[in-house]
């Protein structure tokens, strides 16, 4: 089912499994190839191991079986990754500006030099004017937007996003979807995107990976062949609706494949 | 030559002879520039002597010299400027503690650490005092005054005065020396190395101290007292007068052998007898070669007898 151009492979998960020390098998036998410039969405029921997979890819966690293959090397060079955690994960003592500046600061960029980039990102996530607020003074969605801005400010080559837009209203979400796509087309980085919205996944990505739970595994992969740039027109096209329905059905399948009596736990 | 002498307490008249010798140039006359380094309640100067930071140290009694021999420490007593240990035991009058034999019946014995390690051991084994009743003396006589059934250690020259002033009564005073504790006191301790390499310095210090004491007790002691008051601002003239009077009254410095041998005198026989007594009382270990604890080479020459008026 895989459909992806002739771009060179960036990384592959081969037979990857992850068992946590408490015995929960979060992932089993995951095979997944990601090519340069891919926009891959991960879709799946809550608890199926999407976040775990993302952490594995980022190198924040190591598989208990199988290997991660980065262009033929195990492990691989994980610099230049942008990561949006499922929770905002901001420095509670630093204001919004400093939180977004942080990744640049860690690369040695001074406050003055970083300011334009930071202010641009702030504007992109509609938070201009809040640069001196500290996280606890922000609403849930605002915190998440700061986190997104922080991941994007370094213009990473690989972007891993864990339900970045879940806490946002649909209008803002659409806007940010469009912004992200635009950015992606300009810079052609690679995105792995976890979402619960079938619509979002189809709108954004060229491949949708549907996962099933207990144990977490890849249930199916859908290619979204629609051409980029995608805009509002695409959103209202029958193609889009059909793809969404198809993805939705696969998701239902994935969930039912594990539903049964929910008495499996750990 | 610069030398340092460490005392075992804050400046007080009990150190008067040394201050006198500094003040009136007696040490300087034989070429010593003596610095007196005061001690204090919690300050232990002997390690400084052992480490060579002090040239002379004022020992309390002979036991530590015996201990030094036992531990293989080359330290010797070269003079004993007090013939009697000025330690007294005080009790309150009219509490059934008016006789030496009754003292052990007190509820509490308030004794300092040093006392507890020396004469108290002797009191326990020889006189039947109860070790469990000892309470540390933190150099504050209040508990003694508060507890009428307690006894407390002190220097005959100083604590009775404080108690008298604050407690409003004259305490019974039992000078240990009068009840068998016949150690020399306020000894001058020196490392063997000093004796070997600079005997003239030792001699000068011993002689100077003896002369100092004569001058302090019998001559004009104003300069020495001023030095004392400067080192220890809390010292009062009243206290100084009391102390000197007590020193004389009890013959602490000048009595017995000193009549002929001069201040600082020691005799082999007396040291031996004290040691035997301590061994019997299980305070000192038997078999110590106590000849190594002292030397009589610098004393018993009648130095300064002429200064006594």
């Amino acid at each position: 089912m895989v459909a992806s151009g002739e771009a060179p492979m960036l990384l592959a998960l081969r037979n990857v499994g992850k068992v946590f020390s408490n015995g929960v098998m979060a992932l089993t036998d995951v095979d997944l190839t990601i090519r340069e410039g891919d926009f891959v969405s991960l879709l799946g029921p809550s608890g199926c191991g999407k976040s775990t997979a993302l952490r594995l890819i980022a190198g924040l966690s190591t598989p208990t079986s199988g290997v991660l293959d980065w262009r033929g090397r195990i492990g691989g060079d994980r610099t230049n990754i942008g990561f949006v955690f499922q929770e905002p994960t901001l420095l509670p003592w630093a204001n919004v500006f400093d939180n977004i500046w942080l990744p640049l600061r860690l690369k040695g960029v001074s406050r003055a030099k970083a300011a334009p980039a930071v202010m641009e990102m702030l504007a992109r996530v509609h938070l201009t004017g809040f640069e001196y607020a500290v996280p606890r003074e922000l609403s849930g969605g605002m915190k998440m937007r700061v986190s997104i801005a922080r991941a994007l400010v370094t213009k990473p080559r690989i972007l891993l996003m864990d339900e970045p837009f879940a806490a946002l209203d649909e209008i803002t979400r659409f806007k940010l979807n469009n912004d992200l796509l635009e950015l992606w087309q300009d810079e052609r980085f690679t995105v792995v995107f976890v979402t619960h919205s079938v619509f979002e996944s189809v709108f954004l990505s060229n491949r949708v990976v549907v996962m099933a739970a207990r144990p977490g595994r890849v249930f199916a992969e859908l290619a979204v062949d629609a051409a980029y740039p995608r805009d509002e027109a695409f959103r209202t096209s029958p193609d889009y609706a059909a793809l969404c329905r198809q993805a939705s059905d696969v998701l239902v399948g994935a969930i039912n494949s594990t539903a049964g009596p929910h008495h499996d736990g750990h | 030559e610069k030398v340092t002498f460490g005392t075992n307490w804050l400046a007080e008249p009990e150190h008067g002879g040394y201050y006198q010798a500094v003040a009136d140039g007696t040490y300087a006359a034989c070429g010593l520039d003596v610095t007196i380094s005061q001690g204090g309640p919690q300050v232990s100067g002997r390690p400084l002597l052992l480490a060579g930071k002090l040239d002379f140290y004022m020992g309390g009694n002979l036991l530590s010299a015996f201990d030094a021999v036992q531990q293989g420490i080359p330290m010797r007593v070269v003079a004993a400027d007090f013939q009697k240990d000025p330690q007294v035991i005080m009790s309150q009058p009219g509490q059934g503690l008016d006789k030496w034999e009754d003292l052990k019946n007190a509820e509490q014995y308030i004794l300092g650490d040093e006392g507890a390690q020396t004469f108290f051991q002797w009191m326990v084994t020889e006189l039947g005092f109860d070790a469990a009743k000892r309470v540390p003396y933190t150099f504050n006589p209040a508990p003694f005054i508060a507890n009428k059934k307690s006894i407390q250690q002190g220097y005959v020259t100083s604590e009775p005065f404080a108690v008298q002033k604050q407690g409003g009564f004259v305490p019974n005073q039992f000078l240990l020396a009068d009840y068998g504790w016949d150690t020399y006191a306020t000894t001058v301790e020196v490392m063997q190395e000093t004796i070997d390499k600079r005997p003239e310095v030792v001699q000068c210090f011993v002689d100077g101290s003896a002369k100092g004491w004569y001058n302090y007790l019998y001559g004009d002691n104003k300069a020495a007292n001023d030095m004392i008051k400067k080192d220890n601002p809390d010292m009062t003239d009243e206290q100084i007068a009391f102390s000197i009077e007590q020193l004389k009254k009890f013959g602490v410095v000048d009595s017995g052998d000193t009549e002929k041998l001069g201040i600082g005198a020691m005799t082999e026989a007396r040291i031996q007898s004290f040691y035997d007594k301590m061994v019997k009382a299980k305070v000192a270990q038997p078999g110590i070669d106590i000849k190594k604890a002292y030397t009589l080479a610098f004393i018993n020459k009648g130095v300064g007898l002429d200064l006594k008026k």
Partner: protein
Amino acid sequence: MTAIDDSALKLDPEEARRVRQERLERIGRWVLPLAIMILAIWLWDRVCVWNEIPKYILPRPGVVLQTLYDDAGLLFSSLLVTLRITFLSLLLAVIGGVGLAVLFAQSKWVEMSFFPFAIVLQVTPIVAIFPLINIYVDNQTVKLLLCAWIVAFFPILSNTTLGLNSVDRNLRDMFKLNGATRWQQLRYLRLPAAMPYFLGGLKIAGGLSLIGAVVAEFVAGAQGQSSGLASRIIEAGYRLNAPRLFAALILISLAGILIFLVLSLVSHLILRRWHESALKQER
């Protein structure tokens, strides 16, 4: 919109109680501590009178205050001496404690290898090792500082170490992903995150360095004009000058309270924008 007349709106009891309580609290926050303090002093006085405690054992507060006033010159100059040692040793404790904690945070190895020595320092009685210090350290101030430092540094070390190890895991991951060096992680993540713990340790160390300075003076026996409060206490005790002794103790206590208040303020200022312990509950 509703049938209820606006003018009939009643402040419900709970709400009213809250408002009342808030008002009370604003006053009580300053009045009550003062009142309790005065009560305590009064009680002290009464205990002295009721039990007929002689003044050379426990003087009445009035006498102590009088002495504090009469001997002010002497006592305050001594206080200054003690405070100097206190602050210097607190400073050293901060440097030493945080420095060691940072070192220990570098690796479990280093921590397990050197923490024992820190504990040895903490539990060694100064009185017992002072003779050694006395032999090898010549400068009186250095001696005092060393003693006071030994007493004060451990809480800072221990709390800071705990704080450095309590950093949120996701934040740590975030730093790692951004290729932060060890030093950057320390500077921008672990140290700020350890702040509440460090400041807690500092509050403990403040009092300890004061008592450390006093104890150091006790054992090192500073003399002459430069003598601190410990010497005053010993002398006063020896002379049975209880009022002065208690005046000196009260000065120490006041200094301790003051140090604590200052450190609390510092802590509040540093943490007030983000840490729960310092946040004003916004309702």
